[in-house]
């Protein structure tokens, strides 16, 4: 099977999993998920996945740890978030920082 077909299969499978999880919430009796450990763990899993993605997408290329223009770009994003900037401003500021630093040769 070609990589292109594999990607399509992964898209359809992941979409099915995501839809099934949404539907599950609408179908299960409320008390099934009432255990506070479930809510706490689900919230922390979200935090962990997002934080890991921030780390990996800022500091790695392939299997290597790399420090490049993405690091100052992320610092700018954090500064914008601390100033309560809207989401789109945070993203554009980070991209703009990296683009400018690369144009300057970093």
């Amino acid at each position, binding site marked *: 099977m070609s990589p292109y077909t*594999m*990607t*399509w299969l*992964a*898209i*359809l499978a*992941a*979409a099915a*999993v*995501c*839809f099934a*999880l*949404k*539907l*599950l*919430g609408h*179908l*299960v009796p*409320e008390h099934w*998920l009432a255990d506070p*450990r*479930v*809510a*706490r*763990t*689900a*919230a*922390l*899993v*979200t*935090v*962990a*996945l*997002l*934080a*890991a*993605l921030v*780390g*990996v*997408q*800022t*500091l*790695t290329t*392939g*299997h290597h*740890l790399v420090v490049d223009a993405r690091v100052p770009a*992320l610092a700018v*994003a954090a500064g914008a*978030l601390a100033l309560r900037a*809207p*989401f789109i401003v*945070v*993203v554009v500021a*980070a*991209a*703009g*920082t*990296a683009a400018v630093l*690369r*144009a300057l040769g970093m």
Partner: protein
Amino acid sequence: MCAVTSPRDDDGVGAAVRQALSVSVATGLYGVSFGALSVAAGLDVAQTAALSLLMFSGGSQFAFIGIIGAGGAGAAAIATAGLLGARNSLYGVRMAPLLGTAGWRRALAAHVTIDESTAVGTAQATPVATRAGFWWTGLGVFAAWNAFTLLGALLGDSLGDPGKYGLDAAAPAAFLALVWPRLRGGRAGRTARFTALAAALVALALTPVVPAGIPVLAAAAVAIVVGWTGAGAAPAGAGRPGPGGPEPT
């Protein structure tokens, strides 16, 4: 963002609809960056559009293309997207009794159960405004998110090297903005901050030695240990969407 109720709008439906439309436009614009990043990660326009139509959960979609783009296995991408989408189950549990739907409408409600629709719906004061807020936000974000994803994918296709425009820095910035509102607060915020730091360090430490996609999944294990053993109180926003903050799909 708070619902402003005018004297002529005593059931709050008008305010809920206005709030829904502004959230839809703001979130939709962010779809441009998803579309551009997805083609930069190596997916084509049709695959990118399919993700927004069928998966329709921003965090899961960004994670999926991040892992595929890094050369990760399909199974790792599916597992990460699913784990990030698990919070939508908790939103569904909250919304189902408020919506009172059945049959195909329930399936449609499930598909548009995301951070934004749950946040706007549960922020309303009356049952009819809750339903209006949920449906207008869910369907509004769906329309805008898909239209702007397509636009971003077509633009991204013609841009060339994504690094030149800093698009590779836009993705981690987007994830940072998604996690940011969850790290605030006292004791609960401390647990979340500890988990975030530990997760990022675990993922970085594993990157040189395991296949792509696995480091991020391993980080989830950190959270399961912390959450299940109760090493701290429930983090801010446990089981409910953040009330303010930039927190797209």
